[in-house]
């Protein structure tokens, strides 16, 4: 029986030849839980200790390959699928141009995995409370001696026998190593908790300062303070103090056509729909109608506003009156607005306005279809289905 607190028995030797033979004899004596501590790697020790070759390379291989595949796949996904863009005439999947990044990611992942894997998985580090630390034995092998330690947990361990065995090796000194007493849970110490709290304060304070103050200071404010004229702002550059200028008299904007029916109550005489109802035209009208008109008029022109009463609901476009509107009148309303409806002229150009008019006609016919329309549409469907 031996002391429960005993970690093991150590012996020190003073030259590398000696430690090789010691390692050989120890492994031949049948000890399993023993270790050789040397200040630097001694060649041939792993052979003498009969250690299996290190399996560290597998971690490197697996993570290195993972790195290559992740990098390649990620670049493929971003450049070919998520946001494909032609750059310098290269194909979306430009393999040669992806090689540098693939290589770098492979190296990065492989080395980090090797090192982290070795330290945590193979060494079980960090371990600053190992019984060997702070012993004379550790101090000596750290400097220039070569040591052997046989652990008490070895199944062949017997204090007297091991001592005899170590004596037979002719060491400089034999030392018993004991387990250290358990320390209190240092995580709960007030000092540490204060430190945590201080870190919390500093981190959150800095974050607050950066996000709410620093980003509004020059030069971090995204160049928001600039010596240039901005719309609706005064400027000392001009005598009248205004930043914005009125165009020279008679200036005509590019693409501008004067609206002939301006202010007229019955413009239908001069406004004639110049666009035929074609598929393309209706498609355009549909998209513009859904964007600009449908929030108030509803997707099918029934006046079912999506604005939940924030804006007065317009009347339905399927009333007898609305169906009898001339094309020109609807166009006129789009351009000038009516009652609470504002002008949509800034948002829709001439073609788009007529396209919306045409689309409203489509809606009106579809919502008020008669028997012959239904027959016609059935025929169309059949034709499409047989194709």
């Amino acid at each position, binding site marked *: 029986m031996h002391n429960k607190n005993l970690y093991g028995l150590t012996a020190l030797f003073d030259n590398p030849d000696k430690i090789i*033979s010691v390692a050989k004899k120890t492994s031949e004596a049948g000890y399993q839980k023993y270790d*050789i501590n040397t200040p630097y790697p001694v060649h041939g020790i792993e052979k003498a200790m009969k250690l299996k070759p290190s399996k560290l390379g597998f971690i490197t291989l697996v993570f290195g390959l993972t790195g290559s595949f992740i990098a390649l796949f990620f670049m493929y996904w971003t450049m070919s699928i998520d946001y494909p863009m032609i750059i310098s005439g290269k194909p979306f999947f430009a393999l040669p141009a992806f090689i540098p990044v693939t290589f770098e990611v492979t190296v990065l992942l492989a080395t980090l995995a090797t*090192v982290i894997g070795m330290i945590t998985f193979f060494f079980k580090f960090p371990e*600053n409370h190992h019984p060997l630390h702070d012993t004379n034995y550790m101090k000596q092998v750290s400097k220039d001696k070569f040591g052997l330690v046989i652990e008490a947990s070895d199944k062949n361990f017997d204090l007297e026998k091991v001592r005899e065995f170590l004596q037979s090796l002719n060491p400089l000194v034999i030392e018993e190593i004991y387990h250290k007493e358990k320390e209190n849970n240092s995580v709960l110490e007030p000092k540490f908790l204060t430190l945590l709290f201080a870190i919390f304060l500093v981190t959150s304070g800095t974050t607050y300062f950066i996000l709410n103050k620093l980003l509004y200071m020059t030069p971090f404010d995204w160049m928001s303070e600039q010596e240039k004229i901005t719309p609706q702002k005064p400027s000392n550059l001009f005598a009248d103090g205004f930043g914005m200028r009125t165009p020279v008299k008679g200036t005509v904007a590019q693409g501008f056509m004067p609206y002939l029916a301006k202010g007229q109550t019955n413009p239908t005489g001069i406004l004639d729909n110049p666009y035929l109802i074609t598929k393309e035209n209706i498609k355009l009208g549909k998209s513009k109608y859904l964007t600009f008109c449908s929030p108030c008029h509803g997707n099918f022109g029934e006046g079912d506003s999506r604005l939940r009463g924030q804006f007065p609901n317009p009347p339905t476009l399927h009333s007898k009156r609305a169906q009898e509107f001339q094309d020109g009148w609807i166009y006129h309303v789009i351009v000038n607005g009516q009652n609470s409806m504002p002008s949509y002229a800034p948002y829709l150009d001439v073609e788009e306005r007529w396209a919306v008019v045409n689309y409203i006609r489509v809606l009106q016919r579809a919502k008020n279809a008669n028997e012959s329309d239904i027959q016609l549409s059935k025929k169309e469907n059949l034709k499409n289905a047989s194709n």
Partner: protein
Amino acid sequence: MNIDYSKETAVVAGRLSLAEIEELVAKPLDTKPDKKYFLALSISGGALMIGAVCLALSFYYGLGLWGNNQPIGWAFDIVNFVFWVGIGHAGTLISAILFLLRQKWRTGIARFAEAMTIFAVMCAGIFPAIHTGRPWLDGYLLPYPNQHSLWVNFTSPLLWDVFAVSTYFTVSLVFWYIGLIPDFATLRDRTSSKVKKTIYSLFSLGWRHSSRHWQHYEKSYMLLAGFATPLVLSVHTIVSFDFAVSILPGWHTTIFPPYFVAGAIFSGFAMVVTVLVFVRKIFDLENIITMDHLEKMNKVILATGMMVGYAYGMEFFIAWYSGVQAEQFVFVNRAFGPYAWAYWIMVSCNVIFPQLFWFKKFRRSIPVMMVIVILVNVGMWFERFVITVTSLHRDFLPSSWAYYTPTLYDFGILIGSFGLFFTLVILFTKTLPVVSISEVKAVAEGAQPSHHGGVSNA
């Protein structure tokens, strides 16, 4: 003369014992810094402050303070970036490539060279970050999901740079730290100060010099060296792509990748020699960083200098041989145009002066090598200047030709980068072992078993 070439000369001179080696390396960490140390630190710190002030002004008023303007959009910022990345390459070459080539002499200088790699890459990293003008927006360089649904352009050499330099920095740092772990353990076990012991324990992670650990440790060191070797070649290759992938005459050259890598090793070794000459003298490390080390490095400088010289010649040959008028114009303009002075400084510093290293007497003379390596540093800085500025200043459109003149701010930031580098180097010499204790112990005389596996001693 009878020399036995079958026997290697001792890596560590003076027959030092293991304890003596440790004592020698750890001495700067145990003693308080003296006046000279603070003097050196204040000089480098002053240079750093100059750079910081110039940078702060550049950010406040904008990059208009710099000399860059159309058509010379790239100037000191990119020149300094390439220069510093190049300096870094010597460290990885010494620590990784010479390790794979089983060059034992690397152990004495590897730690310092690796540290210089890390500091040089830090200096280099500043320049691409600041030349965007709004460095707090550099996060856009990373591919992260954002509200614009945009991704970075993975086919651009500038983005490859981001990946290459950040990977290079991370891997160098990890490699360096792995080498430091056993030394931290040694320092932990020899110090008597409680604060130092806590810090060393923390960084040593509880290393026990266990042979079961050494086995994995050596394996990981080899794996990392195996990765660092192609990595270091890839980094300067990708840096050269920044130029070579464009269509500008003078940049669009297939010789760039090997030419840049050779130049990087050339300038890096020159910088390592510059600093080590002082370090070995000041910290009494002449027995660990011996004259043989310096001579071997000078040989590498000679070899890579010739490679660079070959590239200079080959560029001219290809310009003539290609028959492209624009290409020929650029190279004639380089040697005889308005920037001829820069070109000939480059050629004389990089190709002509290093030829003195053919003579053993000069290779082993401290004053001569000091002059030459400093000239090499100057020459290599000018090489990047010549490549960047002379190719840009007369481009396809003669009406926009211009002459680039750097401003005081450009020089201030350059001085600042040197200040940062030397401040870090000076701090490093007093806080960490400048030579790998465990590696040098392992190559000292009598440190390894006399017969393979020590069989006969059993």
